[in-house]
């Protein structure tokens, strides 16, 4: 499987992270989105007319939408019954809203993308509060992850844009449940990092481990 990849993109990281956690190897093709604008070349647009990253190519299958890529890579993680799959689909959609708010704030603040920074931060904060409330409920019931006892596509889809919120000027300091969730995800065997999302430091093992 080939992943057209950009190191600074949270969407590309979702695919890399899920593949790493599920033990699948991806051949990544680095794409110089910024400053090179490689994604605007005719060759790239032939593959993905929307000119976005990531793109996953597996044989004849070419996937350009992040939820589709996660569903394809996720296998068992995607749920084994209609209820669980639908629950995850809710969060996959929610994650797209995170990308359009917190992710947008990051692109504006860091790379001068066009848009209204204050608005994106406000909208993103509203979503963070929803996520915090959900995770608080889950943690009260003894669950570390969003939909099930183990991590699912829901967690992987939402995790990157949330963790990178400080890059867009939105602090995560008020959200204790989100921080605990982040720790649970970063503790998973096979976890990989991206710039802005560090691994758990080796000197601070999981309490009780």
């Amino acid at each position, binding site marked *: 499987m080939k992943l057209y990849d950009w*190191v600074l993109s949270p969407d590309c990281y979702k695919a890399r992270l899920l593949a790493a956690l599920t033990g699948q190897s991806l051949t990544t093709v680095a794409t110089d989105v910024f400053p*090179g604008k490689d994604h605007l070349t005719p060759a790239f647009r032939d593959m993905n007319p929307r000119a976005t990253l990531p793109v996953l190519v597996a044989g004849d299958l070419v996937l350009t939408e992040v939820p589709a890529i996660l569903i394809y890579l996720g296998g068992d993680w995607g749920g084994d019954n209609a209820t669980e799959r639908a629950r995850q689909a809710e969060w996959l959609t929610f994650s797209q809203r995170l990308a359009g708010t917190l992710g947008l704030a990051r692109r504006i603040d860091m790379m001068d993308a066009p848009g209204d920074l204050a608005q994106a931060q406000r909208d993103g904060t509203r979503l963070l509060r929803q996520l915090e409330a959900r995770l608080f409920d889950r943690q009260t019931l003894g669950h570390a992850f969003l939909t099930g006892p183990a991590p699912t596509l829901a967690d992987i889809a939402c995790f990157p844009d949330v963790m990178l919120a*400080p890059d867009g000027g939105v602090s995560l300091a008020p959200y204790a449940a989100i921080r605990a969730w982040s720790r649970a995800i970063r503790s998973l065997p096979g976890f990989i990092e991206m*710039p*802005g999302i560090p691994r758990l430091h*080796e000197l601070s093992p999981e309490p009780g481990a």
Partner: protein
Amino acid sequence: MKDCWFPVGAADDIPSAPGRETLLMGEPIRLFRKAGQIQACDAEGRDLPVTVAYDHVWTSLGTPSQPIFAIPEAEEPGRRFVPCGHVRVACSPLRAVENFLDIAHFPFVHTDILGAEPHTEVYRYEVKIREEEDEVWATKVRFYQPQAAKAAEGGQEIEYMYRVPLPTASVLYKTCPSKPEAWDVIAIFVQPLTETTCVAWPWMALYDDTSSQADLVGFQQMIFLQDRAILENQVPALLPLDPGKEIPTRADMTSIAYRRWLKSHDYTYGAQLEAQ
């Protein structure tokens, strides 16, 4: 400091008049291309000096007394030039340069790339303010690196030299993994937007025949983005130039010399002095 050169844009990305607005030391300026020439002016329309060097556009609100600093190694044939885009950082422009000069953070911030535990020791190195060139230099810096560059295979001990030719520009030379007798050149050009916000323009001139441009840019962007979160959380936001606010260690010799050099020239935009 107003009379120094500052980077304000990528040379291949300046639109025709009316061009693009940006900030330099709190002042709105405009960059545009006219009759094939890149020009700059301030808010009142006054022309600003412009020079194009190392794939970037440099200007000044004052009158630079010298041409832009030379990087003779960059002229050597066979090198690839890699402008790495820009990243805005909410920190003092001087802090961005100082971070670039620091080696001790490699194992902790760039884990398994530019450093790794337990190889955290910064060996003794030499620091000088070269009077003739009026530059800060650190030489004989050695450090163990798991993946020193995109083209590096496996860990190796890498030698570095650091150089600060302008208050917001720094050039480092490091052992080239594919050509050990030569130096790779990696620079950071920092545009001071305000005293507490800046834009970093990383730039490289490398010997590397194998990596794709996208790989090289991606490698540098990954490194720089790992630094950004650290830079934005440094306290105080302004770089303290008087001793006492922060306690340096032996590994910080370059930083001490940099701060001393800034102070001796009154390069204090983005700095904090005791009197304040």
